[in-house]
């Protein structure tokens, strides 16, 4: 029923005389002009944006850059955090054997340590494998080739059981490993992790500060663009007011313009962040391989994308709202 009613001529009028009529709108069709109005404004405000392409592109670009900075910084920290946590999960201990000991001795040490109650895995990295790895990833390939002997010791890479978390217990295990006759020295890779974590926490806080400041920037950019637009359309606004336009009616196209600036700026920021990450992908993959980590660079998640574009749209609309509300009073007809 409602559909047939919507399709019908939207209103039926009762004419009292040729120039004075009362409109009686049926409830079911009351929504249609309203929807028409909003869709129409959405379209016309976009067309308006395209009418001044250079100015619009510049505004969108500035918004995009302002949002790309905190967004990419955030992704960078997120990745650093995830990367460090996968490394931390391994809680790697490297046991460097005395240089004079052969690979076979290392193998026996590894076998013995596997049976240790607090060790989950122990794996021998032979002198040759170590050298190979160093050649591939360190960039010293040529220098290393010039050596006529392998200076590297055999290493047993140990992964303690996950239950081993308390620093005292870890320390006890380390002491035990250090006491082995084959051991040259033992290195635990978690200390610098803690430092890294504190650094990342500080960095994350500064992202929040950056985001707030740059969001304010976006607010001002949109506000200023809308202010110029208001000035250009001064005459139109005055006439509309004379004819009986409500403030809401006058504000609407500007809010939609703010929406478009925000939406386009946010979307462009998303693209820029993604390009930035693509640019970092292959070096980060190498870095991950260097650590033997299966880690791959993560992009903006769906919810982060929604947040980025959503926040941008909101800033666009709010910026427009503030400026239009502020200037609307000045545009009263006289």
């Amino acid at each position, binding site marked *: 029923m409602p559909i047939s009613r919507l399709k019908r001529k939207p209103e039926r009028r009762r004419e009292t005389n*040729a120039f*004075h009529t009362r409109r009686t709108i049926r409830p079911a069709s009351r929504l249609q002009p309203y929807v*028409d*109005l909003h869709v129409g404004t959405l379209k016309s405000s976009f067309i308006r944006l395209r009418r001044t392409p250079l100015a619009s592109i510049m505004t969108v670009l500035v918004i995009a850059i302002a949002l790309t900075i905190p967004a990419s910084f955030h992704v960078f920290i997120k990745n650093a955090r995830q990367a460090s946590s996968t490394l931390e999960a391994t809680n790697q201990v490297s046991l460097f054997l005395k240089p004079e000991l052969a690979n076979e001795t290392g193998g026996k040490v590894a076998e013995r340590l596997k049976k240790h109650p607090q060790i989950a895995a122990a794996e021998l990295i032979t002198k040759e494998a170590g050298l190979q790895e160093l050649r591939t990833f360190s960039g010293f390939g040529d220098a290393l080739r010039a050596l006529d002997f392998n200076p590297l010791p055999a290493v047993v890479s140990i992964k303690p059981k996950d239950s081993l978390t308390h620093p005292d217990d870890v320390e006890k295990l380390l002491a035990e490993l250090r006491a082995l006759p084959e051991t040259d020295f033992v290195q635990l890779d978690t200390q610098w992790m803690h430092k890294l974590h504190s650094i990342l926490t500080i960095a994350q806080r500064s992202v929040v500060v950056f985001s707030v400041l740059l969001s304010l920037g976006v607010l001002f950019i949109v506000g200023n663009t809308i202010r110029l637009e208001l000035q250009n359309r001064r005459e139109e606004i005055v006439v509309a*007011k004379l*004819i009986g336009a*409500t403030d809401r*009616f006058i504000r609407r196209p500007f809010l939609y313009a703010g929406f478009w600036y925000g939406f386009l700026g946010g979307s462009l920021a998303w693209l820029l962040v993604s390009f930035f990450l693509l640019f970092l992908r292959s070096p980060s993959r190498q870095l991950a391989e260097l650590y033997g980590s299966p880690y791959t660079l993560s992009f903006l998640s769906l919810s982060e994308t929604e947040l980025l574009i959503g926040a941008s749209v909101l800033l666009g609309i709010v910026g427009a709202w503030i400026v239009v509300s502020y200037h609307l009073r000045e545009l009263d007809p006289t």
Partner: protein
Amino acid sequence: MLQFINVSKRYSDSGEVLSDICFRLEKGEMAFLTGHSGAGKSTLLKLIPVIERPNRGQILFDGRPINRISKREVPYLRRKLGLIFQDYRLLHDRTVFDNVALPLLIAGYSEQEMARRVRAALDKVGLLRKEKRYPLALSGGEQQRVGIARAIVHKPPMILADEPTGNLDPGLSAEIMDLFKEFNQVGVTLLIASHDLDLISRLGRRTLRLQQGKLIEGG
């Protein structure tokens, strides 16, 4: 329809522009407002759509005191009026059709209804064929007719015109007045400010004469 009761308006820089104005305009009446420039014609007209508010006195429109209505109500009051200006006040970046459609757009009409009414209004002023033109491509007389179409498209009960023929030659002015008479015949109330005394006398309608802010005739 419209009643002024002891209405005064003063500006801080130019003193009292209207003093103690009293008159009553009946529904369906067509009246002229005349006087020298500076006599207060424009100010009086501005009080009705609440572009200005009086300092003293009361203005009743359709029985409601409009000198006291809130800012929020002003747009809805203006929708009951058709305003016509000496300088037409058309939007030059919109077509004739879009200019005339503006009051309907503001009032939230559906697209079909809007098109129907705009064409009816343009037909009335004889500009149906020029709906796709831009105002600046039209002559002065045609531009004013677009302004008139815009003022009547939403079928207001009252039309206010401020020197509608001020920029037009006598022939065109007569045409415009003929249009006004037509509107009046179908029941629209009109108040037309003009200092074209020849034109006014030929029409033989009620004339309100202002002199230095006082209503000296027709009140």
